[in-house]
């Protein structure tokens, strides 16, 4: 039992990170139909910028804040310099552009930072908490808390603010949104910046547990993508559910079967979802009106 609980804890922790990555996918997908494969690089940038700023003597909270701002800037630049320039290109072409951006950002990170593994100190000590015979790291609570705050804040933002509602309207029908005076370019730009900021926060919170390096983004993006697919692309609640499920499946697989196949869980989920449940668990079943 305590073994199961242990796997569950680590699954939920890493699942919360996948959920944040999946949320990033969801926001950009909603606003533009683009699946942004550079999402993982946002997570990497968040962690790496914080590590290097902290090493340069910036206090950790400020370093973290700066890292989020820098990453949001990179997200906005990606939208402005790559996606917006290709206006009118097909969605597939835009997705390929994001894959290119992902490779590009990884390359830049290799040059600007380095190729080493880095870690951050845990935010509130390393003393594990004992629950039912299993241990829970205090940092896990930070990750879960961070994910929770983001979910609530996003929900409020989309439900209550005019700008949040404008993004939702633009996601449903761009033509109609422009017509009532919504600036589509601004909606796109802010959805990229917002996704990048959320990715960066995830990267900062998880670095004390999983460590970070210039190339952690690829795997995180794929697993976040699996989570978003499982939950239903474009559905924020689905992103959270999908993220937690992928995380728990991975931890259980690693614990009970073999840790060699840890990464396989996410890919098995992608294959299963695409074959049997292409809309995901909570995805909208949209029927085109003819």
């Amino acid at each position, binding site marked *: 039992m305590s073994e199961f609980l242990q796997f569950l804890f680590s699954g939920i922790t890493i699942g919360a990170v996948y959920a944040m990555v999946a949320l990033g996918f969801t926001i950009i997908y909603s606003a533009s139909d683009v699946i942004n494969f550079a999402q993982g690089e946002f997570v990497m940038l968040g962690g790496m910028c914080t590590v290097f700023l902290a090493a340069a003597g910036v206090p950790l909270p400020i370093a973290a804040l700066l890292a989020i701002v820098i990453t949001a800037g990179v997200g906005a630049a990606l939208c402005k310099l790559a996606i917006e320039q290709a206006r009118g290109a097909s969605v597939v072409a835009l997705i390929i552009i994001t894959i290119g951006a992902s490779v590009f950002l990884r390359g830049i990170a290799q040059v600007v930072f380095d190729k080493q593994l880095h870690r951050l100190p845990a935010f509130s000590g390393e003393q594990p908490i004992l629950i039912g015979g299993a241990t829970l790291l205090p940092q896990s609570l930070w990750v879960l808390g961070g994910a929770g705050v983001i979910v609530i804040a996003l929900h*409020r*933002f989309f439900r*209550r*603010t*005019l*700008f949040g*509602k*404008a993004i939702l*309207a633009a996601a*449903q*029908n761009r*033509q*109609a*949104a*422009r*017509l*009532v*005076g*919504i*600036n*589509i*370019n601004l909606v796109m730009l802010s959805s990229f910046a917002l996704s990048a900021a959320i990715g960066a926060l995830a990267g900062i919170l998880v670095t004390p547990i999983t460590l970070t390096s210039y190339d952690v983004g690829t795997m995180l993006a794929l697993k976040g993508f699996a989570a978003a697919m499982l939950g239903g692309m474009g559905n924020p609640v689905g992103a959270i559910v999908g993220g937690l499920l992928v995380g728990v499946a991975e931890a259980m697989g690693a614990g009970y079967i073999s840790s060699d196949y840890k990464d396989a869980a996410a890919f098995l989920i992608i294959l299963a979802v695409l074959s049997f449940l292409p809309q995901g668990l909570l995805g*909208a079943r949209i029927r085109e*009106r003819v």
Partner: protein
Amino acid sequence: MTLLRVEEMSIEFGGVHAIEDLSFVIEPGAIHSIIGPNGAGKTTLFNLITGLYRASRGRIMFEDRDIGGQPPHRLARLGLSRTFQNLQIFFRMTAIENVMVGRHLHESRNVLAHLLRLPAVVRQNQRTSAKARELLDFVGLADDADVAAGAMPYGALKRLEIARALAVEPKMLLLDEPAAGCNPVETQEIDHLIQQIAKTGVTVVLVEHDMRLVMNVSTHILVLDAGRKLAEGSAAEVRANPAVIAAYLGAQGQRELARAQG
């Protein structure tokens, strides 16, 4: 003051001159129609005026301001709104939500106040929803306010799109084939609605194939053929214009008409 002035405007798609050297003015008030055979460039002209296309030559002036190349959301701010030939509706929203989105430009955009749901924000939301209900009532959809747009019939969606366009409080409203695909009863309702809109002081510009509707409501008609102006004037003038008859019926039809009038 002239509301809309188009000067020597042209646009080509590949080698096709969709609009060629077109000039006309629209005075404020009343109902203006743009008619012409299929492919005459009517919808292209709408797309040029509303900023979806960019003219290759010429100028478009709205209230003496050059609006060429302005994006649609900027034009909405200046008082230009439209509906589409193929519906552009938020299908996953209810009818009233569709109209409320139309109030976008008239709402305060203070993020903090919205997040905290201050009393002013609550009042604003109430105002917006009251205004939307009023507009739904105006287009005859008062009972469908909380129905999902995706579940509404075609004729109702046509009117819903008009209500949303009116929510922007435009000075000029462009309607692209509002009666297309509607049955005679629905067409008559649209006919009535267009006259009601004009009475509120909004200048209506209409592209429509239903000649009975056009002749009935228009105070001014512009006839296009192959991207050029063919004729212009009141309904009676246009109807009597031989060039218009030729474009619509062909030379053969014209001879037959002449024989019939004998």
